[in-house]
């Protein structure tokens, strides 16, 4: 199985997806939550807006993304119009080159996982006692230092929780790719490990439960390893 190009492709895709989306989505979510926490007017409106993707159906979101990114004989799609506007050449993000498809998949994944992270982080930020900030202010602490020395450590348990669940979630990505590129992921070179397992069981190339189980065990081993590493790192940085 380790010589199966489809499997190798799936592993590669999954790893790229994980390594790009988890850090990016967590840090963007942190930025947005800190911003949300800092503004007073319209905060509830923004919170609702940022939370909307969470309650939207994945496949519907996939369709919207396809319309935004896809190049058809009639239209280049909204994103390509923007690319043109800034002087680039139009690319077919859905049926085009590998990097373009991966880019769309990453953006899509980040967009889908963000609301949950923002929700968790805004509540974590809101639960930091105001007294700590007052104490720091009286002592003349700069805003950056307050963020680095007080806010971050205080919400670190939540941050690590999000990173760990983020890793696990990204490793088992499948439906996102299907929503964007259809069920024949191998042909689109966009398959993931879970997608591979599914294909081996039921897909067009199905009927190989042994391959599927082997891939599932490998996935389990990877997730276990990464989670253990995460827990070890977090134990050093989470304080209570």
């Amino acid at each position, binding site marked *: 199985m380790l010589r199966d190009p489809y499997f190798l492709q799936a592993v590669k895709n999954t790893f790229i997806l994980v390594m790009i989306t988890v850090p990016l989505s967590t840090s963007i979510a942190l930025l947005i939550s800190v911003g949300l926490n800092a503004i007073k007017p319209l905060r509830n409106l923004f919170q609702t807006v940022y939370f909307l993707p969470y309650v939207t159906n994945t496949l519907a979101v996939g369709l919207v993304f396809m319309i935004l990114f896809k190049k058809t004989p009639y239209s280049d799609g909204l994103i390509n119009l923007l690319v043109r506007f800034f002087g680039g050449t139009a690319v077919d993000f859905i049926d085009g080159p590998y990097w373009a498809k991966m880019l769309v998949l990453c953006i899509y994944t980040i967009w889908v996982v963000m609301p949950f992270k923002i929700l968790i982080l805004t509540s974590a930020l809101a639960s930091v*006692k105001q*007294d*700590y900030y*007052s*104490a*720091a*202010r*009286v*002592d*003349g*602490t*700069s805003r950056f*230092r307050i963020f680095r*020395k*007080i806010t971050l*450590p*205080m919400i*670190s348990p939540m941050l690590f929780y999000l990173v760990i669940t983020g890793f696990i979630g990204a490793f088992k990505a499948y439906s996102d790719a299907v929503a964007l590129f259809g069920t024949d992921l191998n042909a689109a070179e966009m398959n993931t490990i879970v997608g591979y397992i599914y294909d081996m069981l039921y897909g067009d190339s199905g009927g190989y439960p042994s391959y599927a189980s082997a891939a599932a065990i490998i996935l389990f081993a990877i997730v276990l390893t990464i989670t253990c590493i995460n827990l070890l790192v977090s134990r050093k940085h989470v*304080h*209570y």
Partner: protein
Amino acid sequence: MKVVLQNLTKVFPGRGKGTKDHVIAVNDCSFEIPDGELVGLLGPSGCGKSTTLNLICGLQKPTSGKILFGDDDVTDLPPENRGVGLVFQNYALYPHLTVLQNIIFPLQNLRGKEKLSRAQMLEKANRIAALVQIDGLMDRKPSELSGGQQQRVAIARALVKMPRVLLMDEPLSNLDARLRLQTREEIRRIQRETGITTVFVTHDQDEAMSISDRIVVMKDGVIQQIGRPQEVYNEPCNLFVAKFLGTPPINVFRASVKDGTLWIGDEAVLSVGGVADGNVTVGIRPEGFCVDENGPLTCTLRAIEVMGRDVTVVSANPAMEGTEIRSIISSDQDIHENKETVRFSLKAGKVFLFDWESGERIAFTETL
């Protein structure tokens, strides 16, 4: 550093439109705290004492009025430029930092000319830790400390920059009764040793009376009385102050004055000179009663509580306000529990007359 408040007012806007929902937390407060004194802001909850502290600290901006430290007008300065140290009610120690890191946190904020080397910081932190007696705990986290130790760390953190004014918000309210007694002595000692002008907020009159050089009694954002604790206790300016200070609390009666004599019910209890005839409220301190067979005031005896050094007599009178009269008499005075009634004579210096409506103190001269 002398602290002066001039006509300080803080209004919190209400939710609705117009001015009727406004909350006036601090109403035209003026007082002066002499250099090096320990001042207790005292009052029931919601009286504006914490707001006053926040105004001095700079965490809140006054609606009007001025705050001066010495001759500097600090009204518009942000807290970090005022040179104040603040101890929070719940200490607000950073839970992820050790005691040492907590104490040097304010020092690490210093920039430019004031910037200190690591060695200087440690030296300062160790000196202050020795002062508050936590030098053995420097590597612990706050969660590994007892309440009293956390309190000391909080004080150390507030003091390490040698502030011009030290502010404490209900510093003892999170401690148990025994530790509270110990810690208040400790606060007194630390304040004496450093000589830093200190303002602390409390709703506990015992606490304020026992350690303050001066107390400020507040009610509904208005200062009622300022003075040395014993002065305020002996000469309360109105019924509120009289009721607020002292344990057990002062006993209050509905009474009247007729021809220079004070009547409680139909008993003439005391001759009071210079008071116009009419209804008055009378406050009598628990220690103002003497058990006296021929005393003028008759009360129904309810219970006698012997507390070793002295005896509390619980009794009732139809003219009293509240549910009982508590009087403290020395234990050598003779009293029999099986009696139905008890008769008291009164010590004139412990009896205060207040206006029936406004509650303002009415002075009287003792006539024999």
